[in-house]
């Protein structure tokens, strides 16, 4: 029995090496799974809904401010989210709807057109910048491109207001200036984030599709004329 015991306890011989038996050693040798620690950080399931929504809204608003003043910060990149781009895309598409149409079926496709252009275009630009050797991730890039549509959305709102007053050459001139300014702003803001992640000599290759993308959107904004 004793022999079996000793054979079955491989380190039996060590028991009398270090600790004297009248000092009880307490504790748990097992390595904790770490889930108890994770409990405190990620258990946002129990907080009130209002707090969750407000936190997300605050993050979105923070990113809007970063787009308005595009300094080289990584806030937009670090915590990417796609709420802002979705909001902007839907707003822009709704504002672009109801243009002058001879038939009723132009209203529907216009919303879909804007959606497809924005998302498909963003995906293509992202893939392109990744293939050219960019260090930015897929969703980060989508996030940046989506948020930088904001100046164009603002321009669209301004254009709509201007068009209420009339659609003569003066209004066209005003709209042209506004759209050109916001297009330049969008392109500048997004390249401030995207081009940094590229090797220096290839910045032009990344900037061109971004330029084309915002140019197409800006063109759609500029040529919008309301239904009579």
């Amino acid at each position, binding site marked *: 029995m004793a022999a079996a*015991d000793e054979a079955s306890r491989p380190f039996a011989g060590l028991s009398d090496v270090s600790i004297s*038996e009248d000092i009880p050693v307490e504790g748990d040798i097992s*390595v904790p*799974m770490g*889930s108890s620690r994770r409990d405190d950080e990620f258990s946002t399931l129990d907080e009130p809904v209002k707090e969750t929504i407000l936190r997300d809204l605050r993050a979105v608003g923070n990113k809007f401010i970063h787009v308005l003043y595009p300094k080289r910060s990584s806030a937009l990149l670090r915590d990417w989210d796609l709420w802002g781009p979705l909001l902007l895309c839907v707003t822009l598409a709704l504002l672009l709807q109801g243009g002058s149409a001879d038939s009723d079926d132009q209203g529907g496709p216009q919303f879909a*057109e804007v959606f497809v252009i924005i998302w498909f275009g963003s995906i293509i630009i992202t893939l392109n910048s990744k293939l050219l050797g960019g260090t930015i991730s897929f969703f980060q890039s989508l996030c940046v491109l989506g948020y930088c549509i904001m100046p164009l959305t603002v321009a669209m709102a301004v254009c709509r207001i201007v068009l209420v007053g009339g659609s003569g050459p003066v209004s066209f001139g005003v709209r042209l200036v506004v759209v050109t300014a916001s297009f330049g702003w969008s392109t500048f803001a997004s390249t401030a984030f995207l081009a940094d992640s590229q090797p220096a000599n290839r910045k032009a*290759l990344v900037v061109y599709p971004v330029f084309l993308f915002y140019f197409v959107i800006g063109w759609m904004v500029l040529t919008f004329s309301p239904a009579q």
Partner: protein
Amino acid sequence: AAGNMSAGSGSRNTNTEPWGSFDDNLIQGGGSAVIDMENMDDTSGSSFEDMGEMHQRMKEEEEVAAEAAATEDDNTDDGEFLGMKGIKGQLGRQVADEVWQAGKRQASRAFNLYANIDILRPYFDVEPVQVRSRLIESMIPVRMINFPQKIAGELYGPLMLVFTLVAILLHGMKTSGTVIREGTLMGTAIGTCFGYWLGVSSFIYFLAYLVNAQITMLQTLSLLGYGLFGHCVVLLVTYNIHFHFLFYVLWLLLGGLSTLRMVRTTFPISPSFPLLSCDLTVCVCVCVCVSGGGPAVSNSRSHSSAAPLWDSVAAPHALPALPALRLPQDRRRSDMTSLPVVMSLNRHLLSESHFLFVVSGLLDSLEGPNMAPMQRVARDVPELTLNATLRIQGALLRAR
């Protein structure tokens, strides 16, 4: 290992070590990562597999124990409230964690398999200088005899040009107020451009495969894509400056140049004089054909004022071809290399006429009610009846 564990379980009750034994934690598996040291020396198989197997067994035992504990907890009365909730919460989280890990593993495996864009990475390895030089080269019809490998296979430039063309077509269609009944403006533009690019370059690749010209799919995609540069420029200029004559001249000039370049690089021809003239001849005839064929493939409408313009532009192009046209008849039977040229031009004829169909349709809408649309007439261009092959082309056009 099993023997060890049972012995360990046997010795659990009689454990005298204050720090417990290794075997205890192995059996209970209460979140323990301690591994039985003995198995490390097991050389019967791959020790890695053994470790993996043991890890798996540990996890399973843990799950089983957790489930047993859960059912046990469910059955018992609620004892200490917080303690119960703690165990349940922990259990739920562990199970959810397992499910999440398994799902993530599956998803990342599928993603790495199917969405691996790294395959395309070498084709985007270009510098801006290279792109610019290739754009300019696409307008210069040089003859690349020696190495078909010299044709650069790159996808960035063609892709950007296709998108630029889409944007220009969209702009043109919106400006001219084109109404697409079934489908959207966007879908039509994207479908046309991508379909042209991918479809025609596949067709060129197929033809090249038939006549055993050593050119890869990538090279045809690249060639055709860069060839669109001429068309882009033409469309951009003429959508903003509405001047018919300007359009036709520019289109023939730039379109013809890029067509020539595509032909010359796809099917290199040996530098002998008769073949050279045959080459030149057939290229010119293509331009004539296409300009003659353009109105032929548009919808049937009444005669337009632009038709005489076609003739006046096409005729001077055809005149230098007259004396050289006799040569292909003599050489045709003996020389097999004229065949690929003719085939390629056949293909180019189709592609150019298809493209022209789209463009002329757009032009018509651009004009609005002022211009009477073009007439569907099988145009009899007399210079072309000399060559039997070209007659077939005419028949093709008429059939369209």
